[in-house]
């Protein structure tokens, strides 16, 4: 069973607030990812990290930022939330990069609603 945790699971906030979505994994994986998914749509990669102090933007442009100060922790921050940020955010980790053999381990997701 994967050991990757996301908090909060659900968050409803007002426009303009700063929010941080937490993601932690206890598997010692070097690679971590953030995906964004809207209902009925595919998962889109918005950020990834191949190790401490390494972060890259994914294919889908996002106003969020990430940091990787510790191997196990990969938080995502929105400085000023807007209704367009309403979505589900999924954190994942892997041992050998995306997709090859070892696959991605996903957290349970953080569903963000911005009013």
């Amino acid at each position, binding site marked *: 069973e*994967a050991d*990757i945790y*996301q908090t909060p*699971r659900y968050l409803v906030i007002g426009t303009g607030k700063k929010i941080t979505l937490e993601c932690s994994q206890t598997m010692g994986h070097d*690679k971590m990812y953030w995906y964004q998914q809207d209902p*009925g*749509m*595919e*998962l*889109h*990669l918005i950020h990834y990290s*191949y190790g401490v102090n*390494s972060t890259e933007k994914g*294919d889908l442009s996002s106003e969020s930022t990430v940091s990787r100060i510790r191997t196990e922790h990969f938080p995502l921050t929105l400085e000023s939330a807007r209704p367009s940020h309403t979505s589900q955010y*999924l954190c*994942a980790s892997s041992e050998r*990069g*995306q*997709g*090859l*053999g070892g*696959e*991605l*381990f*996903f*957290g*349970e*997701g953080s569903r963000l609603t911005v009013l």
Partner: protein
Amino acid sequence: DQQVKQNSPSLSVQEGRISILNCDYTNSMFDYFLWYKKYPAEGPTFLISISSIKDKNEDGRFTVFLNKSAKHLSLHIVPSQPGDSAVYFCAASERRVGAQGSNYKLTFGKGTLLTVNP
């Protein structure tokens, strides 16, 4: 432009029958294909995968078939069980070489909601 397409948003089957979920792709550089299952309010979990050098991979009740010439793969679940009811995502992997070395980019389809009726 969607590179991984799951054209059936939903599928309903009877318990004990076969479920067949389909996936088409357009990028010939994809070399690894995966299926993920997602229950409501949970993250996706890996189900089964197949390398592009194979045409079939089987794991218990789950079998994935790959037809490279048609750029098509399918997931067969037999016999289907009510606990299989979930959204199934097809994903394809493409190797990319960058500053960090070789890594793999995963592209997901939109998913198919499978409902298995008792």
